[in-house]
């Protein structure tokens, strides 16, 4: 299975959406939330989805996560239709979503404790390694509310990595953070991603964040969310604060901004 994935990785997509649409209300006159979404995400690719509030970005993520079954079209992960959440897909939630009654380390280990009822010393070792990788070792025994918002979200990312998923889904993970923290944690994420290469689907409403982090950007329209464009981000990696100052960065953000503010006129 593992080998299969590796050899096929260049040909077949890790995540594939075909004509995906969804409505929460099954009546025929009910409005669609998202419509006709086609997207393939390949191995170790970082794809961001941007769009105005309420355009169904999070709905899209929930369908890949198996938390929501689309009413139209098909979402598949490793060529299998998604019918329920999978172990090889990890989720980073909005606002960290840590459990306030557990220490940072226990929050990171929570997926194992919750799924299987217990965890082994080697799991604990892995949690400690992940915490160290994210620079959180000295906070491992603290409670979540003793950490800043940025650190909390780093814990959220580390927790999603515990089960070593192939695919990482991130649902506006930095939207609750202030602008400075947000930029820094973006670089932190790229660093973590470099050390643990994953296939990432990253939902955001920040255009510059999408351009800074991703390989490709899916731009969505207002509700019902449809694909306005799929943009290749040809900025060199590793990216840094220099990237933000490059002319190409400005071009790309302007291009996307054009779509968001005038959804019917291609920029």
């Amino acid at each position: 299975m593992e080998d299969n994935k590796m050899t096929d990785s260049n040909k077949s997509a890790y995540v594939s959406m075909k004509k995906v649409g969804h409505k929460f209300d099954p009546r025929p006159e009910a409005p669609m939330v998202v419509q006709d979404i086609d997207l393939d995400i390949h191995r170790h690719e970082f794809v961001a989805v941007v769009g105005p509030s309420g355009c169904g970005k999070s709905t899209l993520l929930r369908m890949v996560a198996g938390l929501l079954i689309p009413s139209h079209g098909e979402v598949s992960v490793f060529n299998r239709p998604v019918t329920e959440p999978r172990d090889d897909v990890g989720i980073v939630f909005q606002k960290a979503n840590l459990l306030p009654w557990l220490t940072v380390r226990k929050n990171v280990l929570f997926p194992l404790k919750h799924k299987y009822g217990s965890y082994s010393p080697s799991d604990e070792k892995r949690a400690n390694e992940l915490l160290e990788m994210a620079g959180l070792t000295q906070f491992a025994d603290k409670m979540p509310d003793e950490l800043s918002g940025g650190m909390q979200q780093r814990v959220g990312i580390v927790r999603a990595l515990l089960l070593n998923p192939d695919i990482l889904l991130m649902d506006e993970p930095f939207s609750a953070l202030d602008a400075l923290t947000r930029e820094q944690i973006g670089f932190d994420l790229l660093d973590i991603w470099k050390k643990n290469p994953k296939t990432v689907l990253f939902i955001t409403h920040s255009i510059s964040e999408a351009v800074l982090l991703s390989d490709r950007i899916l731009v969505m329209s207002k509700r019902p969310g449809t694909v306005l464009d799929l943009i290749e981000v040809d900025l060199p990696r590793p990216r840094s604060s220099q990237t933000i100052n490059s002319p190409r960065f400005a071009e790309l953000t302007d291009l996307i901004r054009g779509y968001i503010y005038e959804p019917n006129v291609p920029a």
Partner: protein
Amino acid sequence: MNPTYQPKTWLGQQANRFAPGLFFIGLVLLWELICRFGNVPNYILPSPSAIFIAFFDVEFSRWLTHLWATLRVALMGFALSILIALPLSIGMMRSELMNRVLYPALIVIQSTPVVAVAPLIIVLLGTDDPSRVLITCLITFFPLVVSTTTGMLETPPEMIELSQSLRAPRYRETWQIRIPYAIPHIFSGLRVSITLAIIGAVVAEFVAAEEGLGYFIQFSTSFFKIPQAFAGLIFLSVISLLLFKSIQWIQAWLFPWSLPKKK
């Protein structure tokens, strides 16, 4: 403490700091003065000093007997409430049908005055502890069920999604996410319940008992030993207060994260 009023002098600051206590002492003094100089007879309204003296008229071992009787019934009723409320809340949280069926029944039980039901329970279960514990339980379990159910239902959907994304069994969603999340709610229910438990025990003693502080107050009143009755009453308030406080202490000790953040 008060942002608008800051006393300047040292005396003023101390007065400000101890204002609640000073107010209470003032009230007791006023009471004493009214009784002394208004010639209010002791069997109508005893003065605080008369109550103080009456307190020592009763043997200490008798106080302890009455105290223990009331405390025993209150705590047993309270414990029974917790044992009933937790599974009931979990059931009502998990099953919409159970919620729909049980909620009206709970409202009916809650809105029936316990004082009116108490004699019937005595007829049904006899004059011993079981009746008194049941009476206490009836009055205490409603706030517990409501607060526990509310807390579990208010668990943020993202936390539930975290559980679903792991395909964890439902019972772990309940025990590892919903119940811990409900802890602050559960404790506010426990605080209400523990004071009601004392009320329940006293009501039960009014109806049928040979000991307990409620019985003592009733007995003293019927013999016109009003200062003694007041002494019993004060004892009751102090116990209520201590139990209320100990619930807070237990919460701070076992679940420090569940307390509202200072600063």
